[in-house]
């Protein structure tokens, strides 16, 4: 596996889809390597993640969901690799920002990218009356 700055890890084809979108927008999907949890046990996800990090040299992991098995695996890896940065709940805006921020400190780039990702999440349109009880 070639060198990369970060690993994108998630359910099913989440990583492949993100890589495809990053390539289309920036032509820089080489910044990342992808990992799917498909057909893997929790231990299998962790082993695959360690292997991907070792072979790519990546120091950042982006995962898709807080409760996801990739996030759990990343936290386990982080236990004995405290230098690893884990960004949970990554979206396309997060990853695109990271692409353009990796010239310096990748940890700082990941933290900046996470803020960009949060800011990118918006609801457009006027709230309708009688929405969900827990809604606005």
């Amino acid at each position, binding site marked *: 596996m070639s060198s990369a700055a970060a690993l994108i890890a998630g359910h099913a084809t989440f990583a492949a889809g993100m890589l495809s979108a990053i390539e289309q927008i920036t032509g820089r999907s080489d910044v990342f390597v992808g990992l799917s949890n498909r*057909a893997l046990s*929790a231990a299998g996800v962790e082993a695959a993640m360690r292997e991907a990090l070792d072979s790519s040299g990546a120091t950042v992991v982006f995962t898709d969901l807080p*409760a996801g*098995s990739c996030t759990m695996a990343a*936290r386990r890896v982080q236990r004995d690799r405290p230098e690893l940065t884990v960004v949970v709940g990554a979206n396309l805006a997060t990853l695109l920002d990271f692409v353009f921020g990796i010239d310096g400190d990748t940890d700082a780039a990941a933290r900046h990218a996470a803020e960009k990702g949060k800011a990118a999440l918006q609801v457009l349109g006027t709230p309708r009356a009688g929405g969900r009880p827990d809604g606005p």
Partner: protein
Amino acid sequence: MALELYRIDDRLIHGQVVVGWGQPLDLRFIVLVDDDVASSEWEQELYRMGVPPEMDVYFESVASAAERLPGYVDDERKGLLLTGDIDTMTRLVERAGTIRAVNLGGIHHRNGRLQRLRYLFLSNEEESALRALADQGIVVTAQDVPAARPLSLNEVLDGEGRR
């Protein structure tokens, strides 16, 4: 009955459990039964961080789960009981004596296991253990997510559900 599902899933708490089942069933608590996790503060903290704030997680050994099961069943909230392997669920079924249905949610590849479904791999010993549960009258079905059709143990072992 407050415990909606008794699930075997080697990923324990993960997206399918918290979101896939948690949201449609409006689950408010998870009982995670695992002797190792029950004795590790670090493991418990890891799993606790994986669930939303409105959901409680209770960590139990097989012995303590069997003892406290009536309380979980009587809980007015909806919950899900989770083990990471068939052996743990089998021991719990034996000790509790009140579990009537078991869900096979995710048992993944390992040496010595044969693939039965996309998400289900079983060794000969595990198959025997599941058949023994069924022989006791426990309804054993495989269903990874609520939208999927539950497959009977016979369908699983006959390979009819392979996809």
